């Protein structure tokens, strides 16, 4: 890389990308804010027996052996690195109003996802893909005005 390029690179690096607007950060904050009264039930580990049937492994080179267990594949960190993680919503169902134990009315929704995580070995180009179904049930108290 010649000196002109290095100067230009240095000049480019001095430019600061436009910061996200206050509105955008506020939107993000609202999205990531804790849901105070919502009760979130996760059944991802319940679904693990099904996951075993769905899990897909693609190998282009030999992968170190690992113990069979219900956790994500344990691979040498130096060899495999996660390069992609996707959550695909495959179904969403509004189950309508339910009544909580304390008598509070609530709306229950059920979402089904398939989470897929991909690890890649940059040296051998081997990749490993792990997919697991996940179901979320949200029970959100409602108030009538």
């Amino acid at each position: 890389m010649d000196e002109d390029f290095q100067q230009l690179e240095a000049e480019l690096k001095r430019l600061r990308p436009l910061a996200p607007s206050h509105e955008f950060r506020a939107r993000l904050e609202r999205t990531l804010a804790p849901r105070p009264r919502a009760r979130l039930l996760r059944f991802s580990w319940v679904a693990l027996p099904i996951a075993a049937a769905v899990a897909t492994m693609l190998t282009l080179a030999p992968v170190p052996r690992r113990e069979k267990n219900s956790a994500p594949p344990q691979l040498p960190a130096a060899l495999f690195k996660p390069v992609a993680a996707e959550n695909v919503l495959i179904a969403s169902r509004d189950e309508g109003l339910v009544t909580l134990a304390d008598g509070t009315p609530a709306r229950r929704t059920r979402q089904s996802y398939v989470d897929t995580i991909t690890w890649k070995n940059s040296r051998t180009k081997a990749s490993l893909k792990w997919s697991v179904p996940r179901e979320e049930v949200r029970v959100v108290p409602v108030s009538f005005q």
Partner: protein
Amino acid sequence: MTLFRKTPNSPPMEDAHADDSWKDWFALHGPKLLLCARQWTRSLADAEDVVQDAFVRFWRNQRQLGGEPLALVLTSIRRASFDLARREFRRAAREELAETRPDDAAPWFETPLEGEDRRRAIEAALRRLPAEQREVLVLKIWGELTFAQIAEKLDTPLNTVASRYRYALNALRSELTAADCHG
């Protein structure tokens, strides 16, 4: 549990239940994420949507994975941009992104205290670069990715990535030199 392990500049997100701990990391990396997203989307609003989508998904579900969080979120943003392109244009996302020329007028960079004319000239030259060159340049300079990481993300040979980077710098240098000559 340390969730962001390998980016030296990243404030650690030590507690998975610390609801505000994402803010420090986003304050540091949010502008870079947004700039990269704008290379793959048609407007600032679209870029904000894909950054939000990718970052929220990462924060909620993927931050425990390890690896390079910035690289992982950038991958997610690129995929979200593909999805957006698919939804909006009903065409092959790869073709669409290659043809995408960001057309929103909002600036890409903060206004410097001095040298605003130079900032405008650089940004204008950047916008005129071929999309595939600009993409590599932005990921390298402001996304802080290595050539190897960019090659992997774009599924493009390493040499091609390095060439595009050099072509981009060369084109920028030519444009800026010409602009200097013409005052």
